[in-house]
């Protein structure tokens, strides 16, 4: 079991002009905890995940997964990007096993494990379907299944339910909680939805607009399993208000103008 840690991570994209994206971001998670990251669009959430996934070398700072630096070293965490990115040339079952196979798991074993999870992920009967034949919700669940099967203890989930309608989304939240309770892995979960973040997480980090900083971290010490009715309880409502206020506050502060150059 492993957690993750980001220490004073800085990054700017350099194109025609310099766009500072991450400003001294520090955040960590103890092994087995569920941490959410909320923040306005474009504040650098996906960029942060790419740093932890080892896909982007930041200008400065440290990023670790399970005590190992991810700088220039992908493969330590299981990453679910914002788009589902299923490989169109692999059937559903083969997509599910991709991460496991690349990590070196023998194909029969990977298939057996995937098949065992197909029911839990609501995909039974679609093992041989091509991604193009799946609905939006099924595609997201399959991408999530692929992430779960990638043998890493830390999961980086970038808006896994972003493309879903409200009803499916609610179902998926309940279901993710259940799956996570069964697997107990460290999760970093990106979302725009404050309620979703509180409902699922142990801690919720709020990011400011670009360049993104961690503005506040709010605890969510509710007993699990959490029922949908939790969202109307006073303790939940007050924390939600605190989160929204922190978001508003972060938005209100003038963000840095882009550096000349």
């Amino acid at each position: 079991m492993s957690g993750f840690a980001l220490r004073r991570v800085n990054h700017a994209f350099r194109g025609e002009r310099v766009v500072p994206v991450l400003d001294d971001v520090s955040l960590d998670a103890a092994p087995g905890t569920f941490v959410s990251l909320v923040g306005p669009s474009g504040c650098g959430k996906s960029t942060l995940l790419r740093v932890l996934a080892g896909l982007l070398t930041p200008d400065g700072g440290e990023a670790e997964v399970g005590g190992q630096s991810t700088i220039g070293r992908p493969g330590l965490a299981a990453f679910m990007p914002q788009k589902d990115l299923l490989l169109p040339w692999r059937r559903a079952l083969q997509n599910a096993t991709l991460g496991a196979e690349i990590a070196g798991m023998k194909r029969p074993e990977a298939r057996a494990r995937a098949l065992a999870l197909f029911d839990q992920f609501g995909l039974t009967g679609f093992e041989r379907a091509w991604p193009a034949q799946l609905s939006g919700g099924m595609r997201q669940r399959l991408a999530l299944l692929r992430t779960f099967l990638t043998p890493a203890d830390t999961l980086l989930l970038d808006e896994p339910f972003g493309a879903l309608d409200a009803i499916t989304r609610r179902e998926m939240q309940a279901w993710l909680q259940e799956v996570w309770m069964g697997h107990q892995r460290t999760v970093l979960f990106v979302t725009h939805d404050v309620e979703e973040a509180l409902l699922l997480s142990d801690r919720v980090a709020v990011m400011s607009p670009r360049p993104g900083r961690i503005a506040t971290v709010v605890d969510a010490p509710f007993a699990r399993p959490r029922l949908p009715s939790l969202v109307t309880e006073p303790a939940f409502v007050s924390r939600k208000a605190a989160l929204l206020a922190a978001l508003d506050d972060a938005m209100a502060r003038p963000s840095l103008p882009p550096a000349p150059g």
Partner: protein
Amino acid sequence: MTGAGRGRTWRLAREYVPAALLLAGLVGCWELAVALFDTKPYILPAPSRIWDAFLEIRGTLPAHTRVTMTEAVLGLALAAVFGILLASVIASVPLVRRVLYPLLVVSQTIPMIALAPLLIVWFGFGMMPKVLVVEMVGFFPIVVSTVDGLTGADPDMIALVRSMGANRWQVLRQVRIPAAIPAFFAGLKIAAAYAVTAAVVGEWVGTSSSHGLGLLINRSRASFRTDELFVAIAVISLSSVLLFAAVHLLFRIAAPWAHVMTREDSK
């Protein structure tokens, strides 16, 4: 007949009947025009006369077609093999890309009809120069589209596979190569459409073989058998269409996923 089968027949009919009707109409006009203006058969034979010529020489057509098709298929296979090889090098080594790409484009401006006699000087009147003509015609579209396919894979997909710890070879195997398959076949289809014609040009310039559609054209022309010439032309286009269809079938087998959407859309 099942419901699905009937739906399929209806779809096929709807797709091809209008074209067939137009063709039949054109042939009818042609027949009428030839009768009306009393055109000399060696200038423009009537469709009925071409049909008679077909019946007359049909026994020899399979042998002619076999020779030309062999050249076309061999040339196409050669173009595919060399096309994939060169495309892989161009896609992975930027320097090679910068050096070879312009040369490749320039090579396409050389008219095949001028190159074919040269190939005969070098390789004789056998099958080799014909296969090479086909290969050189098909090479270009295959290389260009395969390079596009290999370099055009979704960068996010590559990032995803890299995040799983994939090495260069695994990225190639899992993403770049499958992503390039539809593009490769797009090039191969263009090459296939021209392959039979290219083989005919090769034969037409000179051949020691006793058969070939190019040879048939040459003979018919020399003996003013314009009706036979038309038969040869029809066989050539039919063979081209068949080769094209065969490549398309190969594509469906090699990349079934690429046809899932179209199957759904056409419903």
